[in-house]
């Protein structure tokens, strides 16, 4: 599994390299934001992959509580770690983009805020896992946190939205899709595809590592 995952990841990263080429050379530059807008092609797909990863942790956690199959826990562990990795990309590209566009490094924009909170939660999730020695306890407790995290997401989104309607924030990071010209949309979708593939590759590899660790522990 690990090797297969690494192959897929390699393929995906080649795809992302292609996206870089496409973004810089094959896509028109946005009028208002200039060159810095091109971070979008990394930032938005990374955000998508991170939220996908964390969402699947929640789903796998719920499934574990019903089915008690330890492999679901191994998957959740893998997806959580990959989610943290993609979040790191998203949270670093965000300020890099935000600074020239907003004039500030950070804003409490719904997607950034949600990702930041999920990162903090899943860092805690990992700490909890590390503090538990028995695999069944670890799987059960992680699953409980995973399910609660999933249920929390809409509340975070709603509360930040309410916060924002009171305090108008700079324009959303992503130019609205309908008015995006075809060339930009194409690059964006390609990147989303490449990042999704990268997610699959990373999780598969990490899952393989997790299974191997389990088997070695006996």
């Amino acid at each position, binding site marked *: 599994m690990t090797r297969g995952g690494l192959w897929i990841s390699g393929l995906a990263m080649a795809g992302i390299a292609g996206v870089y080429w496409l973004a810089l050379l094959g896509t028109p530059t946005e009028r208002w934001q200039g060159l810095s807008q091109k971070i979008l092609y990394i930032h938005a797909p990374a955000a998508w992959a991170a939220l996908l990863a964390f969402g699947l942790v929640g789903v796998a956690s719920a499934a574990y*509580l019903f089915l008690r199959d330890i492999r679901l826990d191994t998957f959740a562990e893998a997806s959580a770690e990959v989610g943290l990795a993609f979040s790191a990309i998203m949270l670093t590209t965000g300020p890099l983009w935000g600074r020239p566009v907003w004039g500030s490094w950070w804003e409490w924009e719904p997607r950034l805020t949600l990702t930041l*909170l999920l990162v*903090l*939660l899943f*860092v*805690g*999730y990992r*700490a*909890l896992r590390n*503090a*538990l020695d028995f695999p069944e*306890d670890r799987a*059960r*407790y992680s*699953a*409980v*946190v995973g*399910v*609660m995290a999933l*249920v*929390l997401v809409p*509340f*975070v989104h*709603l*509360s*930040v939205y*309410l*916060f924002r309607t*009171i305090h108008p924030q700079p324009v959303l990071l992503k130019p609205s899709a309908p008015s995006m010209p075809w060339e930009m949309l194409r690059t964006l979708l390609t990147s989303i595809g490449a990042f999704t593939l990268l997610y699959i590759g990373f999780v598969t590899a990490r899952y393989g590592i997790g299974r191997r660790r389990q088997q070695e522990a006996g």
Partner: protein
Amino acid sequence: MTSFLSAAWGVAAKDIRVELASRTAITTAAAFGVLTLVVLNFARDPTVVSLATIAPGALWVTAAFAGIVALNRSFSMELEQGGLDALLLAPVGRGAIYLGKYLANLAFVVVVDLIVLPVFVLFFNVAPTPALVGILGLLVLAAAGYVAVGTVLAAMTVRTRFAELMLPVLLLVFMVPPMLVGVQATTRLLGGRPMGEIVGWFWFLILYDVVFITLGLMLFPATVDE
């Protein structure tokens, strides 16, 4: 149904009796709350930042931290001499144990809030208007939500190595939505806005409470069954 409620009440009453006998949680949490208010009062340049500006945030941060201190002891008392075993052996469902623990924890947090609020009024020069009743209501509703989450988390973190640190790390993220809403509503109330304007925020808190109490009831058995 009645045995469920009476068992839950039995657990809650026991928690309250233990707290009255030892008096550790509430005094510690209240002292911590008052100290936090003191620190926040001084953590500004008074010529630049007015009390009114930081008051709502100060109140809610204090309530959150004091609430965590109160929650921490909820399951440590059970771990001491196998109290949790006794509860699990009792002929009552896990849900009754959760409800009992939840009610006792909520009572403690509300008592701490009741101590913190007047001190807040004192330190931050808040006018004693009926708005304070609304603010207390917000504090209680928010507590009803995050205590539901905290009870589940405390049952788990008490068995880990760094229990006192693990609980806040996990719980604070769950506290963000109610706190965010609570601070916004408090700002309005302190600014003299009518209650009608913040009805929406109340409904948000109630929704949060209902969802997480239900979720807590469903997830709690997984945290105690070995």
